[in-house]
């Protein structure tokens, strides 16, 4: 437990020092909120976006670089178990996303006077599931693509269309019909739905179950495909 906490804390410090992470997970969503004049209805989507930027935009490249530069190999000679090593990465990413999310929600309510989320507990549950899910997808990308540049690029190429087609960045109502249909099959779509439902107080359990299912499937695929070197 001591080892796990130390690894997670170290990783969080590194994330806090990374200007790109800070910008995209904290400043960028706030900028979008300002452009939207503080419209609370857009916030659940932005929460999914914060998580996706960390889990799919940043995590694959980070893991691939740790592998390429033999950071993982060096850690593999210490007593830490490989599962805990990757678990610490996950917890750090989720915690960083959570910090960005809490800040965004707080600004929405206090600065723009929007209505507070109706079901805070369900919102938290949906956000955690969403955040873990995008990290699991990020693991799969880092497992399949071997080098750092490739993993970063594929992460971005998967993330950007997904945040637009899933309703995270723009409402799906605004999309043409065919693009909306693509969104039906993207893993981030049920996450945006679950967050939106919890925000408006019409929370349903079904999208959460889908998220849990994606987490299990992606984790299994990532574990089967991941290479330490």
């Amino acid at each position, binding site marked *: 437990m001591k080892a796990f906490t130390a690894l997670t804390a170290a990783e969080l*410090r590194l994330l806090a020092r990374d200007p790109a992470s800070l910008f995209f997970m904290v400043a960028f969503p706030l900028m979008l909120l300002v452009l939207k004049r503080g419209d609370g209805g857009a916030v659940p989507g932005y929460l999914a976006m914060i998580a996706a930027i960390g889990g799919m935009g940043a995590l694959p490249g980070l893991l691939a670089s740790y592998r390429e530069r033999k*950071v993982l190999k060096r850690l*593999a000679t*210490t007593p830490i178990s490989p599962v805990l090593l990757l678990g610490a990465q996950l917890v750090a990413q989720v915690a960083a996303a959570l910090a960005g999310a809490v800040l965004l929600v707080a600004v929405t309510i206090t600065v723009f006077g929007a209505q507070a989320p109706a079901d805070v507990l369900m919102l938290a549950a949906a956000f955690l599931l969403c955040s873990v899910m995008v990290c699991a997808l990020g693991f799969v990308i880092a497992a399949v693509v071997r080098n750092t540049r490739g993993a970063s690029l594929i992460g971005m190429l998967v993330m950007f269309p997904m945040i637009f087609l899933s309703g995270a960045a723009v409402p799906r109502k605004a999309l043409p019909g065919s693009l909306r249909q693509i969104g039906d099959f993207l893993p981030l779509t049920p996450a945006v739905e679950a967050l939106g439902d919890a925000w408006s107080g019409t929370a349903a359990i079904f999208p959460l179950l889908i998220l849990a299912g994606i987490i299990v499937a992606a984790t299994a695929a990532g574990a089967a495909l991941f290479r330490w070197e």
Partner: protein
Amino acid sequence: MEAIEVTDLRKAYGDTHAVDGVTFAVRAGETFGIVGHNGAGKTTTVECLIGLRRADAGTVRVLGEDPARRRRALAQRLGVQLQDSSLPERMKVAEALRMFGSLYRDAADWRRVMDRWSLRPLARKAFGDLSGGQKQRLMLALAMVGDPEVVVLDELTTGLDPVARRETWRLIGDLRTAGTTVVLVSHYFDEIEALCDRVAVFARGRVEAVGTPAELIARTGTASLEEAYLALEGVDR
């Protein structure tokens, strides 16, 4: 007492027999050198010792344990410095020492390790901003932070300037005084001669000869360990 016993170790990658029947033993408290040209099987052998690779055949025992089966338990008692491994670019020196220390049950005081390896002036520097020699020194210190019984060092002083090299030699000498078993992989014969009780000469995935530097020199009728090595390798001088 043997700290390390390797018997008929074999490991192939596809058709390449990287290690093809390696046998040697390292006594507890001994500083043991491994020399050999690139591709002689040194690094593969080392990676089998520390449990990063599973041998195709043969047995490996480190402190009585099989590293392939009991890697994590053994890792508590092992210190490792790998060839060209690194840390996250933005991780600071003191953070790295503290974090690695927290991975071990009975770690040394990381601040003391930081002082011993003269890293305190660099404590707040990020890994990515260190010079090659400073990185090497930090990676060596990280190998010591778990207070190990056996230390495995691959390419000990590569990238160090002459002063830092001598300082490192002194610290490795201290380890021997403290009774730590040291396995040293190196290209530098002066280093092996100065530090090692015994040396194994690797060639083509096998151990060509084992002995004290003086024995190898006498056996080959040469004047230095480097010449003894070249004679054992069958290189004409």
